[in-house]
């Protein structure tokens, strides 16, 4: 479900880069869609933090993730509304992506090839860390299509990686059940 949301988001960012801000912002709901989505995702992440926290590092990672997503979503809602003017508020987006990526990497205790889930966590983590460079560049050159398309491509990669996540699919010789069995031997 998250992957589907990211895919729609990527399509929206791509379309916004193609048509430009002037046309995209003609509709109010389109103007608030991306920051609103980020803010709601940040709110939902608190639920994930509470319900899916298997360890302290999981809890810390998800709580940090929720805070930066809400910060970025709220700041960009303020920018879209015109309440916030300073361009440095745009830096909340690379902050959110960077912290989200580090959260992915920090709470994955296994190596890249341990299981499909571990592989997806590493791919998502590094995609977000590298993808944070695009909104960082975009904060200083907001009209650059290179940074806009890179930002959209980041969400395309995230969607593909999340769609590939499957708990029981055989991949790279490891599935969680066999991996646990191997670890216990």
């Amino acid at each position, binding site marked *: 479900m998250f992957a589907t949301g990211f895919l729609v988001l990527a399509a929206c960012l791509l379309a916004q880069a*193609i048509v430009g801000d002037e046309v995209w912002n003609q509709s109010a709901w389109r103007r608030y869609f991306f920051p609103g989505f980020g803010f709601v995702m940040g709110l939902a992440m608190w639920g994930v933090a509470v319900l899916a926290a298997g360890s302290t590092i999981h809890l810390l990672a998800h709580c940090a993730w929720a805070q930066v997503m809400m910060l970025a979503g709220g700041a960009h809602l303020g920018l879209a509304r015109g309440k916030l003017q300073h361009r440095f508020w745009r830096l909340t987006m690379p902050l959110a992506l960077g912290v989200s990526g580090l959260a992915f990497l920090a709470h994955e205790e296994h190596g890249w090839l341990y299981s499909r889930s571990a592989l997806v966590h590493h791919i998502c983590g590094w995609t977000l860390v590298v993808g944070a460079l695009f909104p960082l560049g975009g904060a200083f050159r907001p009209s650059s299509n290179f940074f806009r398309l890179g930002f959209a491509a980041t969400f395309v990669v995230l969607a593909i990686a999340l769609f590939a996540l499957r708990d029981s699919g055989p991949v790279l010789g490891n599935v969680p059940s066999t991996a646990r069995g191997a670890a216990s031997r």
Partner: protein
Amino acid sequence: MRPSLTRHRLDAPGSRRTAAVAAIGPLIMLAGVLWAITQPDRLPLLDPDAHGFWSLAVEPPLLVLLAGIFFHRFIASGLIHDLCGSEVG
């Protein structure tokens, strides 16, 4: 950085921008259909007795297909309308 990469929108005529926006949804739908054909095991609906509720409720290739339909129907159509209106105006 090259000037062509620093404009406010992609440097293409209006009709090409319209075509590009109109193509995003169908391309996503096509990706979903191709995924369903190449990996039918990702469609638990084809073998419903072997799967639980969530596997049946969340069918990844169908979600990709639905994402494409949603984008094309609810986002791209309005965007193309606004794009045509801004060019006429």
